[in-house]
């Protein structure tokens, strides 16, 4: 234990001058700050979410979301589909999202970011039943979606990890396609008040399809679960 000269406050074993613990903690903890990019990202997220015009070096996605949202309010759903397809960012398949676009945008941005980061798997498994047995700490049982099965016949299941969607417990299932690219499927208990009105496969609706950060995302509800599939665009 280092000796401290209580008259001078200097430590005999350290060149630094001891300070009161609370002062030292404040200085130490406040030295760790957000960098410029991190700060800009958080500010832009807030501005977009609150409906302000983004400024600074904002990702093109936020601008795209904001402009698409304004167009959608003034057109019938079929006309919106034509405009969005022409713009190449949002594509609707006969489904309107009045009032829910912000939530969908938040979900899409969050999960696209998660997909890009591809954090380590909690479990590696090639069998879906193995994953279902592993995810015991969420309040639902992950399901093999028929949409994913039908659309991703050549995908190989790699495993999964716990995650969250807008602060709610969720699971991430990870796949690899025929050319080795990763895709991720997120599942969480669906609550319309949390996630808005999302197309339901069980009602015969088609998934909502969006493009974020260069990725294709599909959002839908199936058997009471919100499902989001994130994958790179077809080559």
């Amino acid at each position, binding site marked *: 234990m280092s000796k401290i000269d209580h008259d001078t406050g200097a430590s005999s074993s*350290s060149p630094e001058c001891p300070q009161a613990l609370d002062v030292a903690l404040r200085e130490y903890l406040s030295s760790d700050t957000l960098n410029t990019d991190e700060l800009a990202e958080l500010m832009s997220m807030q501005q977009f979410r609150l409906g302000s015009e983004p400024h600074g070096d904002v990702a093109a996605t936020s601008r795209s979301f904001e402009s698409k949202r304004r167009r959608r309010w003034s057109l019938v759903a079929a006309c919106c589909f034509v405009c969005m397809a022409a713009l190449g960012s949002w594509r609707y398949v006969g489904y309107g999202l009045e009032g829910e676009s912000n939530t969908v945008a938040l979900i899409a941005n969050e999960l696209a970011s998660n997909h890009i980061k591809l954090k380590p798997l909690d479990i590696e498994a090639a069998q879906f039943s193995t994953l279902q047995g592993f995810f015991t700490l969420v309040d639902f049982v992950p399901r093999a979606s028929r949409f994913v099965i039908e659309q991703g016949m050549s995908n190989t299941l790699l495993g999964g990890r716990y995650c969250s969607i807008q602060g709610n417990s969720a699971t991430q299932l990870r796949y690899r396609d025929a050319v080795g690219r990763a895709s991720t499927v997120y599942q969480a208990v669906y609550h319309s008040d949390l996630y808005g009105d999302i197309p339901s496969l069980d009602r015969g609706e088609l998934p909502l399809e969006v493009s974020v950060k260069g990725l294709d995302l599909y959002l839908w509800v199936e058997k009471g679960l919100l499902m989001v599939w994130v994958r790179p665009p077809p080559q």
Partner: protein
Amino acid sequence: MLNESELHQLFQYARSFCSQRADALDLVQGGIEVYLQKVTANKKVENKMAFVRKIIRNRFIDLYRREQRFEHESYQELSVYDMSVSTLEGIMISRSELEAVWVQLNEFDRDILFHWAVLGYSTKEIAELLAMPLGSILSRIHRLRQQFASDKSKPPVNKEQGA
């Protein structure tokens, strides 16, 4: 809307849980998103910083406890406590000594120290904010004092906590 100073402080709070920057940033982003949902739904939030910190803390517990990266630490509560925070206020410590101790602390202890040193809360206020019994807080403070007294001269241990 949270200003830059508030964002920095939230990040510093999240960093007290996570050794990885990216994980701390995730926690902050998640906390802000939940807060903004409240705002856009015209739901009143009394103290936005306390609200977001609570979301950050709960998300950390939910995510990292489930990933078994968060070690639950048992402890015994003392029957007699010094009922003031002077048990911590009298400690003198250098930057290097603090760094050596900090990496050895668990997330609960860091959370208490952050609320005390950075946010300036009293022991009673900390207990209320963290929804922990006052006795638990005092017990942890007592152990922290002992740890600061005995460990601050040891070389830093590269212990990854959180994520």
